């Protein structure tokens, strides 16, 4: 089986833009915004599960980054630093919406056993083609929203946005083993929950 290919492409010279932005070049900062706003929006919507909140997070995260550029030392990538700001802003939004619940990346109610595969069913060869695009998006969105925030954040950064394990750990303030453990559990839980939509049916029929 071949390894999963990352979709992350070449990034424009981020450090040059950051240097220029630091010395007051707003045009350079604008390019950084254009480079990353779609990614930040996706991450924010995955965490907050709410579009208006995600829009606020994009604005607040970039503004905070702009105000604190002077403190960015360049030891990590600008994008990783920006993601860290955005994740914190998104978690704050989530806390405000759900004051009765504990919202934290450390939310770890479930044990290892909860992520152990229960149902082993083979999927259709092209599961994504079983549904039209809108239906598929609805299913994927519903399923991932059911994961605890700590799991879905790690999954989104690693598998959707293509950050490395090290970058994810840095952006979330977690250890590398913690990122790996959450990623495995997130992947297995998503797989389990997608079973009912994607499993191959002997009679070729499917119910939705």
């Amino acid at each position: 089986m071949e390894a999963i290919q990352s979709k992350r492409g070449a990034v424009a010279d981020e450090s040059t833009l950051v240097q220029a932005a630091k010395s007051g070049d707003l045009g350079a900062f604008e390019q950084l915004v254009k480079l990353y706003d779609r990614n930040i929006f996706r991450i924010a919507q995955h965490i907050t599960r709410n579009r208006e909140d995600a829009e606020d997070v994009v604005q607040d995260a970039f503004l905070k980054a702009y105000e604190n550029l002077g403190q960015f030392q360049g030891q990590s990538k600008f994008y990783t630093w920006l993601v860290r700001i955005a994740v914190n802003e998104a978690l704050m939004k989530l806390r405000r919406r759900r004051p009765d619940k504990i919202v934290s990346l450390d939310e770890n109610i479930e044990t290892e056993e909860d992520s152990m595969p229960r149902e082993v069913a083979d999927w259709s060869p092209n599961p994504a083609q079983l549904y039209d695009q809108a239906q598929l998006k609805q299913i994927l969105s519903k399923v991932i929203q059911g994961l605890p925030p700590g799991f879905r954040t790690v999954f989104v950064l690693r598998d959707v946005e293509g950050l490395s394990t090290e970058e994810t750990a840095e952006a979330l303030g977690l250890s590398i083993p913690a990122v790996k453990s959450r990623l495995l559990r997130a992947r297995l839980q998503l797989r389990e929950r997608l079973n009912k939509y994607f499993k191959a049916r002997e009679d070729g029929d499917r119910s939705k």
Partner: protein
Amino acid sequence: MTCKELLKELTDYLDGTIDDRTRSELEDHLNWCHDCFVICNTTKMTVEIYRDSRLYELPENLRTSLENAILKKCRQKEKQKKQPHRNA
């Protein structure tokens, strides 16, 4: 390698960050254990489906208005910095 041991190595295996020896033990297990093969295959599909899903794409018109709002606020910040405090 047992099924439980395989599960522990699954992330590194799917990400291609596994050492050669563990990889060969794992692939040997996949050759005879159908359940693990299915779990491995469907987990890989899960990651690929989400990665390719274009879930929560930012619509272009919203993107433009967000960018404008961000830059407007940045300009305001700059102005505030440059203006001397009137009541100082």
